[in-house]
């Protein structure tokens, strides 16, 4: 399969991967937006660099894509971006798959806690750590 043909170029593929739930959930999300004027709080957890770790042993019979995620993060944390790249699935689709796995407790996520808030500079301690890390390269 050609990675470039996954997702946007082939909308049907999204339905297959997500079992048709992408549309239903996106609609629910829109409803939530309309009601609260704020995004679903669970969305905030899943950033491109949110780190994913597997919890426990993958049970048999998981859908292929979910099992692939658990396999990929079985020997260390992996970012959502990396999962998306290795699975050759668009970021949005991987987010949906991760929410499935979160809901059944098969993964834990580590959000980017030191990311600066909108319109704020990163804090000085974070900058110092980054500087030291880069200088050690």
């Amino acid at each position: 399969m050609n990675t470039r043909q996954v997702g946007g170029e082939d909308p049907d593929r999204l339905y297959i991967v997500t079992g048709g739930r992408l549309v239903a959930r996106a609609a629910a999300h829109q409803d939530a937006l309309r009601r609260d004027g704020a995004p679903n709080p669970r969305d905030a957890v899943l950033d491109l660099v949110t780190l994913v770790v597997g919890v426990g042993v993958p049970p048999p019979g998981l859908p292929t894509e979910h099992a692939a995620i658990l396999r990929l993060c079985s020997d260390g944390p992996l970012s959502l971006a990396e999962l998306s790249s290795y699975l050759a699935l668009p970021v949005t689709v991987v987010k949906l798959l991760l929410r499935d796995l979160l809901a059944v407790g098969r993964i834990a996520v580590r959000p980017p806690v030191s990311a600066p808030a909108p319109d704020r500079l990163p804090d000085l301690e974070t900058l110092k750590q980054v500087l030291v890390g880069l200088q050690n390269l």
Partner: protein
Amino acid sequence: MVQRAAAVRSGPPLRATVGDALKIVIVGGFGAGKTTLVGAVSEIPPLSTEEIMTTAGVGIDDPAAVADKNTTTVAFDFGRITLNDRQVLYLFGAPGQQRFWFLWDQLFGGSLGAVVLVDTRRIADSWYAIDRLEHHGMPFIVAVNRFDGPRPPLARVRQALDLSPRIPLIECDARARRSAKHVLIDLVAHLTDLHSAERTP
């Protein structure tokens, strides 16, 4: 060709203790050297992936978008640097053209800052990105990637970019690890300077 069912990761896994990921965005026109720069400092071979967008810029939250022919994908690439036992830095290369801007907010919110990578043979490619970063208050520096051919002095480049004197303008060779590393260090130094500027108005 990629077999999804056999998806395997490349490069070393992150340490189990890493739990705090940071981001820096490298933005620039076509062929400015974004992927080269990311690859020069990354501990894994640069990876690429994509996000689904609607051409209207509404994003995938629009339920109609999935089946809609107006969806398109935007590719971007990234690399990774483990900073210490706890922190990892991701570097994203993003196209800088106007029609990709909507990707930025969606994908790169929470970044420490940005590097605008400039190819002086195509200076105009950077105008939009610089404008937009300033507008959004996203801190950035500008790095001129030195290709073969004419090398206009930095003062001329600054003029051509109409760049504020407050924004650092440096040169680099995106292919060289040391040079790429210094671009990132200069960005962090600039972010640190902005802190002092904030405290002493």
